[in-house]
């Protein structure tokens, strides 16, 4: 469980977080959204203690992050950065994935088992002897994810996971997140991708200029034009369509294609009856 209480943070006097409070329970799936520079990445770096709040506090599983090392916190909160090239360094994929396990001091036979498990889980088993630098972009991303999943953290935070991924890869990513979530993991994602969130995440935290401007169900937050504009996002396309059809009685908070289909079918039926 992550509890953030009124935290403030600035980089060399430039404020990045200005009084952020939120709570995320174990087993939740949450998307953190907002414009560039809203403070999303700064916020998630507080979750594993890479940054410590200058005011306020962050508690992770009851531990104040100021009183624990990054390594201790990372053991339970796995943070997957946007660019895999900022972490890949080992000679083989297998070694790359074993890196975190070694750092956390797992015994050799456990490391072996875990690496094998995660290689299979992420579909990387065929590539285990290859150099991480010889892989494609999508594969490198998967190695980066695998290197975090290998030590089985309770919370998994993805920073901009969908950037530069094609549609099929995005679908696979969503499936992976849901699978992890079904294993009682907490999934937190930072993203601009409205469609990705609408289809997969029940809760959205919307940030703007270092503050949380909305925190609630995806439907309430992402179909609200005022809120969405404030965070420089756009409404989901299907919501835009629904709003254009509001004169015909289509509800304005539609966010799924299936809902839109049902609403439109109802109108067609009504027209046919007339």
């Amino acid at each position, binding site marked *: 469980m992550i509890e953030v209480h009124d935290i403030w943070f600035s980089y060399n006097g430039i404020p990045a977080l200005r009084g952020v409070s939120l709570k995320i329970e174990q087993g939740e799936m949450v998307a953190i959204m907002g414009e560039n520079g809203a403070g999303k990445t700064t916020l998630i770096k507080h979750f594993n203690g*890479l940054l410590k709040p200058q005011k306020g506090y962050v508690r992770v599983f009851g531990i104040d992050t100021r009183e624990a090392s*990054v390594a201790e916190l990372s*053991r339970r909160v796995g943070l997957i950065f946007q660019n895999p090239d900022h972490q890949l360094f080992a000679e083989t994929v297998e070694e790359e994935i074993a890196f975190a396990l070694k*750092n*956390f001091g797992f015994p050799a036979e456990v490391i072996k088992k875990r690496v094998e498990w995660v290689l299979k889980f992420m579909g990387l088993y065929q590539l285990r002897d290859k150099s991480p630098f010889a892989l494609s972009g999508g594969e490198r991303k998967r190695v980066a994810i695998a290197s975090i999943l290998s030590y089985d953290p309770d919370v998994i935070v993805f920073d901009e996971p969908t950037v530069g991924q094609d549609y099929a890869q995005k679908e696979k990513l969503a499936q992976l997140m849901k699978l992890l979530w079904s294993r009682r993991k907490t999934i937190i994602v930072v993203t601009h991708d409205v469609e990705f969130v609408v289809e997969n995440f029940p809760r959205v935290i919307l940030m703007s200029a270092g503050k949380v401007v909305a925190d609630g169900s995806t439907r309430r937050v992402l179909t609200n034009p005022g809120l969405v504009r404030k965070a420089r996002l756009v409404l989901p396309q299907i919501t835009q369509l629904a709003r254009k059809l509001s004169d015909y009685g289509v509800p304005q908070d539609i966010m799924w294609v299936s809902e839109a289909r049902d609403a439109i079918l109802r109108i067609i039926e009504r027209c046919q009856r007339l």
Partner: protein
Amino acid sequence: MRILEGFQFERKNTVIHRLDPRVKLFYSILMFILSMVFWSPPMLMLLFISILPMFYFAKVTRRLVRTIQGSIFLLAIIFLINYFATGLERALAMSLRFLVIIASFSIFFLTTYPEDLSEALIKLGIPYEFALTFVMSIRFVPCLAREAQLIIDAQRARGLELDKGSFIKRLRNYVPILVPLIVNSIRRSIRVAEAMESRAFGASSRRTSLVELKLKRSDYLFMIFALTMFLVLLLLKVFGVEQVIAGLFKEILTILL
């Protein structure tokens, strides 16, 4: 990585920033020569103090402080090695010499526009390609520092503890930082080369320049000031003043210890 801050250019408009880069480079080199000429801690200290007003006038004093904070580790190594090899006086002198060199060159890099720098180098007779390579490598320093921080964050998130373990272990801890940093730098240089070629770099052998450097009155004044200071300090050496001061300093040290 904070040691790099002393070499990151900052756009400001002060007397020092407006000086011709050639004149500033001249000053830095004079100070560098002096740091090699002097060998006693008090004189090197004097030299160091004489550079400080430059930082004040250029409004970059905070940068210098951070650079020195960032180089404390290196400074400690220099001090310790010299201390055990030759004793306290020499250790102090070498540490101060290091500080003087850092200060004299960081005032140059902190206050010189990269484009002016390449112009200055060309005017000094260095071929354009080399000048450009040099300037670009400086330009990418902030980029590199940012990237290094990202990499450090990513590896710490995977449980890497940089300052844990024996000395050898600590050095080895930097492998997961350096490998991605170098790989990314090489990738970036290839990308930059492609971007430059697509903007017709090297299409014509005769290049014109947007800014033409010309020495102003303030530049001549500064040059006279730098030369005077250089000569005065040099005379202290020639007339044996350093010997006397160094002798006094030694006495004080022996009394204190």
